[in-house]
């Protein structure tokens, strides 16, 4: 019997700090993802053109959307890997319980998502500067992004990234509960491609995307994200309680 008194908060904090140090390699994956996204974006997306009577017009669109999308994928994978056996076994190095481990994981995911959001928006700025220098200033139309817009962009990008991370964490936990989900989840995601247009699953995905992306009010959007990630994290915690120790 130990005479050392400890609290849930202290244990979770220790685990969180340990996870931050142990998973510093995740940031190198983020750099690779974002640098690759910048290179992809430099090719130029959303090109459109027209030609009429000898006059041809072509418009190339550049934006940091690919960078944010890559960062979302990175967050999904990082959160997913946290639920794998290797990562879960590191928690046994501490005197802890499942709740403290879950709290540490959630804090880790939130921290990395915010870092991902900040770096993704700054990468967008770097892309704009790169395009400007590569293509020259003569035929470039630049939409001004002020500091307020940049900060709100960081807030919203972080929200989207944490949403993806929470979804990845929940899916990872489901797979740890039953290996059947390894088949069910990809089938649910890839299946609609083969079912043709206007199938119920595709409509459900569209409704989910519209629920977040179609929201015009920033406060309502943040509220929606907060409620969704809370629901996903609570569900993941409840599911993980059903997983056997060292399963």
């Amino acid at each position, binding site marked *: 019997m130990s005479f050392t008194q400890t609290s849930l908060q202290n244990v979770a904090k220790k685990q969180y700090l340990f996870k931050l140090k142990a998973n510093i*390699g995740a940031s*190198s994956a983020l*750099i690779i993802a974002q*640098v690759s996204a*910048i*290179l992809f974006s*430099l*090719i*130029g997306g*959303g090109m*459109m053109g*027209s030609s*009429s*009577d*000898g*006059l041809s*017009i*072509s*418009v*190339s*669109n*550049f*934006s*940091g*959307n690919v960078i*944010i999308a890559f960062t979302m994928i990175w967050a999904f994978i990082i959160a997913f890997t946290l639920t794998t056996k290797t990562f879960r076994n590191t928690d046994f190095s501490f005197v802890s319980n499942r709740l403290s481990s879950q709290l540490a994981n959630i804090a880790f995911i939130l921290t990395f998502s915010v870092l991902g959001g900040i*770096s993704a*928006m*700054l990468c*967008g*700025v*770097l892309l*704009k*500067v*790169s*395009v*400007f220098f*590569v*293509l020259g*200033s003569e*035929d*470039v*139309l*630049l*939409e*001004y*992004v002020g500091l307020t*817009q940049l900060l*709100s*962009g960081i807030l*919203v990008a972080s929200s*989207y990234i944490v949403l993806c991370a929470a979804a990845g964490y929940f899916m990872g936990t489901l797979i740890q509960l039953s290996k059947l989900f390894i088949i069910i989840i990809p089938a649910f995601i890839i299946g609609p491609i083969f079912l043709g247009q206007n199938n119920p699953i595709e409509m459900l995905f569209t409704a989910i*995307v519209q629920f977040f*992306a*179609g*929201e*015009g*009010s*920033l406060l309502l*959007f943040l509220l929606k994200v907060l409620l969704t990630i809370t629901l996903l994290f609570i569900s993941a915690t409840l599911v993980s309680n059903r997983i056997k120790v060292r399963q």
Partner: protein
Amino acid sequence: MIFSWVIILIIVFVAFSFMGKSFHPGRSIQTLRLHWILAVYVAILLLSVPVYSFIADEHFVHGETEMSGYMPIEMNGSDLQDEIKWTRISKEFTITQFLGRDSFDQFGRSMHMPGPGIFYLRIPADVEVIPNESLNIVIVDE
């Protein structure tokens, strides 16, 4: 493209030049390398903000968007052989979502029906512009 390669080369060069000098006992060299790479990456990202701010002050597009829809532009005198190229640097969907514009184009509508946009076109002074009711033309400067 060249600029991005230069940035990557700078990141790699600076990270590798520092890592050999800063080894401390008890810290693995891999962690040290990563710390330096991270530091350089963050520095580049932070540096891009004032550079962008400087460029934007000089070149950003003033005013609101006025041209909508996808339409061919016809010019009087069909013998004009020319190619016009525009590059538009847009805001990310995370910003445009809250500005009353479409955020995600789920069905690729941008290919056929792009949202409102403004195009600045430099034309020679001797070219006559014939007004078209489907095209809102504003002459900024003559």
